[in-house]
């Protein structure tokens, strides 16, 4: 009669070590795979919550701010008297510097046909102060609004603007949908 070999303590430890190493390897692999495929998040502004306080220009760690004005052309009235472009007390509806609301002349006014004008944002000049947004929202259709431009944003762990935003309009959202541009983005009810 042949004696069955008995498992020694050494075999048990060896098997246990192998199994735990496999389990650890599997867990690390799964974690890495999850991180690779997981949805990334970015900071963005909800234009319907924004109260155009102007803090985005000064609170961002970037200089100039990563927040810029964007224009929803499908909402714009193409008005001659644009509340986002002209100062309320402008002496003339013209492109003269003294009549412009924007402190950096980042909005270009282009004549289309009488009496319609197109307003185009020069992103490099815009500092994200939202003065034009306030003017457009208060006196116009609200087609101008601010957004965090993702290729300028450092995507800090804690957004310094979000921390100070009085209307809590800045929150993380999925990177696959990085912007809340009015017109396609509507107010949630």
């Amino acid at each position, binding site marked *: 009669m042949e004696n069955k070999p008995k498992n020694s303590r050494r075999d048990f430890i060896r098997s246990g070590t192998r199994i735990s190493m496999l389990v650890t390897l599997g867990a690390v692999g799964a974690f890495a795979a999850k991180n690779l495929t997981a949805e990334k998040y970015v900071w963005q502004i909800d234009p319907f919550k924004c109260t*155009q*306080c*102007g*803090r985005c*220009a*000064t609170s961002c760690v970037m200089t100039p701010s990563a927040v810029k004005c964007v224009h929803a052309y499908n909402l*714009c*009235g*193409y*008005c*001659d*008297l*644009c*509340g986002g472009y002209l100062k*309320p*007390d402008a002496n003339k509806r013209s492109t003269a510097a003294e009549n412009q*609301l924007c*402190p950096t002349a980042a909005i270009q006014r282009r004549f289309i046909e*009488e*009496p319609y004008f197109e307003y185009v944002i020069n992103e490099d000049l815009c*500092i994200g*102060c*939202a*003065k034009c947004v*306030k*003017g457009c*929202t*208060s*006196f*116009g*259709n609200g087609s101008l609004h601010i957004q965090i431009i993702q290729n300028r944003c450092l995507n800090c762990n804690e957004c310094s603007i979000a*921390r*100070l*935003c*009085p209307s809590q309009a800045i929150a993380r959202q999925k990177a696959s949908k990085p912007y809340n541009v009015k017109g396609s983005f509507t107010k949630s009810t």
Partner: protein
Amino acid sequence: MKNKGIVIFLIVLAVVIVGVIAIDFNSTKPDQQPANPYEYNIDSFTRVDTALIKYRESRNLKINLEEPVGIALHENRLFVVGDQKLQIIEPTGRLVQEVNLDQKPTCVYVSDKNIFIGYRKSLLLLNREGVKIADWNSFADSTVITSIAEQSGIVFVADAGKRIVRKFNIEGNPMGEIEGKSGNDQIHGFIIPSPYFALAFNPSGELWVVNPGKHTLENYTVDGKLRTWWEATSIKIEGFSGCCNPAHFAFLPDGSFVTSEKGVVRIKTYKPSGEFANVVATPSKFKVEGHAPDLAVDDQGTIYALDLDKKMIRLFVKK
């Protein structure tokens, strides 16, 4: 001795940590931040000299509609549309009748015989009992009906989408269009940056149409010829500002205009000549950046403002 030094060090450290936390907490409070050089304060444009306010709010009527959009007044009855309903209300606030509608309405007009309900792309004609008479569907895809008025069997429909005033006979047959263009260089066709395009007949039976992009009120003959107009573009209280104002208007019994504005929401009156008269309701009475109230006026000159945000009819009488 050694332990005492450590205790003192820890106490000092704790005080420093608490101090840093307190300073940080206070400095990040929105109301305790330093002044913002880029803040655009429009409060000065919403303030009104109290001497100009000649009306007071006498009462208000809460209405049971989620999204009221339009009001009309005829023979001591208020006709309010919103959601998918027409509500007929007594001036006391008692609901007399409610009529369910097929679509969301945009405006309402009431004549001696009929109730006209504007939908976005069609018009519903009811008799005064709320029974359907006809649907008028001969509108373009881009049509947005915003206002209706009738005079001597001719129905005028403001189409903000096509930027024209359409004319129909009472059977709903098209009778032409008013484009608002004139030979005079001073006036342009209708400029409608957003769907606010109102028209109404004054007590003398003259058709007045708002050209909101120009801040003008324009008087047309029934044939569509521009007779006269007045303009009031200004950020000041005397004028209209923004891209599309006045959003709504009505007439007082003496032919004066009552206007309501969007953006900086307010109600004012203008003399029949177009000269600014007084203020009915200041922006402080309405929601900030709210909707322009639709208007109706009774024979005594009481102004009924349909507050779309507060969902109520607000009555203003002369002081």
